[in-house]
């Protein structure tokens, strides 16, 4: 019957569209956070090398990890993930070894960026952006200057209902760990429980858990003090100069967002060319200018316009200082305890 023919054709067409895209020559698929890369980067890369880049978006590390672990990375060539997740991909055999010979621009990196704890020598990942996590606040809405994690976790009455915390379990727990003087990679169950109790208490004063829109809440005045990554805070600073960023005195974590090539990639050379392109001084500089995050690219940071450092002070932080902070590592089996603790925290009343 005609109808069967039509639907068969449409299914075939749709299937072809789905599969065909992945088989195109000289094409790679990358997955990144929305707005974490200059919008014209794929276009410029194509002009420079002829390789087409398709950009997929993920809202959180967990989302892309879920998809990649389920599908074994098929369909993706380059993934932008935070360091603990890059470690997990490596342990699962889903990340390919980075052939340094094919990525000469690795020489542009700071020496510190070659000795990061989660991947010394950058064998399975390449750092893209790095930074700290701290407090982002409206100086006109907050009395005094916040200086401690406890200003967030045990807020003043005037701040109750106007604070947000990061939702991702590692950073959520890290705030509590640091406040209590523990490691951000703490695995002791007793300490996890202690921090959990602290954070359950904090939840009562919280407006929301927010990974992505906290800076616009600051700009609109819905929130006054938020838990933030330094680059995200810069977006807020860009829109409202009363917004400031501070690293609490108890310390912070050095997080690194990395680029990983999937073992399932059918275009590894093209993927490596892309990474090499991103690491060039020019691109690195322009990435930093665009996304307002620090890049571990020495050549790029040196070339940056110094006035940027005045508007966005956290961009000026020196790598040597950053290395003093703890780096987030994959927790292995202890991750379950963190996930469970975070579930209890977010579900508490």
């Amino acid at each position, binding site marked *: 019957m005609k109808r069967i023919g039509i639907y068969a054709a449409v299914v075939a067409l749709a299937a072809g569209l789905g599969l065909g895209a992945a088989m195109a020559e000289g094409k790679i698929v990358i997955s990144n956070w929305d707005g974490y890369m200059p919008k014209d980067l794929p276009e410029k890369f194509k002009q420079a090398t002829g390789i087409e880049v398709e950009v997929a978006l993920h809202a959180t590390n967990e989302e892309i990890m879920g998809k990649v*672990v389920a599908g074994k990375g098929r369909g993706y060539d380059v993934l932008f993930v935070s360091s603990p997740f890059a470690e997990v991909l490596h342990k699962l055999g889903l990340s390919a070894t980075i052939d340094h010979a094919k990525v000469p621009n690795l020489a542009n990196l700071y020496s510190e960026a070659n000795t990061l704890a989660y991947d010394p020598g950058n064998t399975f990942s390449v750092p893209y952006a790095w930074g700290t996590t701290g407090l982002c606040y409206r100086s006109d809405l907050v009395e005094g200057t916040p200086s401690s994690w406890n200003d967030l976790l045990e807020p003043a009455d005037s701040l109750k209902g106007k604070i947000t915390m990061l939702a991702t379990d590692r950073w959520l727990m890290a705030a509590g760990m640091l406040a209590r003087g523990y490691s951000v990679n703490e695995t002791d169950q007793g300490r996890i429980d202690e921090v959990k109790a602290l954070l359950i208490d904090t939840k009562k004063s919280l407006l929301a858990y927010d990974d992505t829109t906290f800076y616009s809440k600051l700009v609109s005045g819905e929130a006054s003090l938020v838990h933030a990554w330094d680059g995200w805070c810069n977006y807020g600073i860009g829109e409202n100069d009363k917004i400031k960023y501070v690293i609490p005195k108890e310390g912070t974590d050095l997080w690194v967002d990395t680029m990983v090539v999937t073992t399932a990639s059918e275009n590894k050379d093209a993927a490596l060319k892309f990474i090499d392109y991103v690491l060039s001084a020019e691109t690195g500089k322009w990435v930093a200018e665009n996304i307002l995050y620090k890049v571990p690219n020495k050549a790029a940071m040196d070339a940056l316009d110094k006035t940027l450092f005045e508007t966005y002070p956290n961009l000026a932080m020196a790598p040597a200082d950053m290395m003093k902070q703890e780096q987030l590592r994959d927790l292995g089996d202890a991750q379950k305890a963190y996930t469970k603790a975070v579930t209890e925290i977010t579900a508490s009343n």
Partner: protein
Amino acid sequence: MTKRLGQILLILPAAGWLTVFMIVPCLIVFFFSFFERGTYGGIDYTFTLDNFARAGEPVYRSIFLGSARIAAMATVIAVVVAYPAAYAISLAPRHRQTRYLLLVMLPFWSNYLIRTYAWIVLLNREGLINKALMGSGLIGEPLHILYNEFAVVTGLVYNYLPFVILAIYASLQRLNPEIREASEDLGAPAWMTFLRVTLPLTLPGVAAGAVFVFVLSIGNFVTPDLLGGGRIVMVGNLVYDQFLSARDWPFGAALSLALIFIMMVLLFLQAVAVNRAQQAKGSTHA
């Protein structure tokens, strides 16, 4: 003989599709729940009943209970709002009733992400409702009506209200008007007729609507996710987290099974109650 064969041929393609793409996947979920999580995600095919034991732990039990509580609140509010609305429609002139119902159903069929998002715009501290209330001087401080249970319940009621109205209306339609007239002829005031005659006879419709709202609310993911600001964790969010953040598919599967089991029990109870109600009152229907 051929009639039977013909019937089977007609049913087979669709039944086959549903079996392959619904039954089988659900069986796989059932199957996964008996295994362990691999160290970094994925499945380790070692048999275990741990996942079900874990599902019973206090933290997860309280999430199930909390979800039930939120779903119950949404159900009660939806029914209380829906009944008078459905009644009003049934009182309207016949030719207009279809139009009123269509207007009720239109939002129900539109994109629920957008309908939920609309409430973020309305309820946030700098949003429309607060601006209006502050502007008219009714309140001094903005109300905290987003990213909490209030917002989630509002969102759930908003999403499912049309269906409850429809269910109750259908039940009202099936009533024999002569019974109401008889009650009035016998001297009962309007409110007593309603309370003693109309309401009990339309309970099946109310029950159908209520169960629908409850069952869909308890497993809802989008509404608590968007309107809860990460602070409200219902079963749907829990399953989502297990599959994406925790990468613990077996546990997520166990939780899903628990959810489905609860829902099936509720539906069964509803079917039994409706059956019994129909048997008892069978003689009062036309």
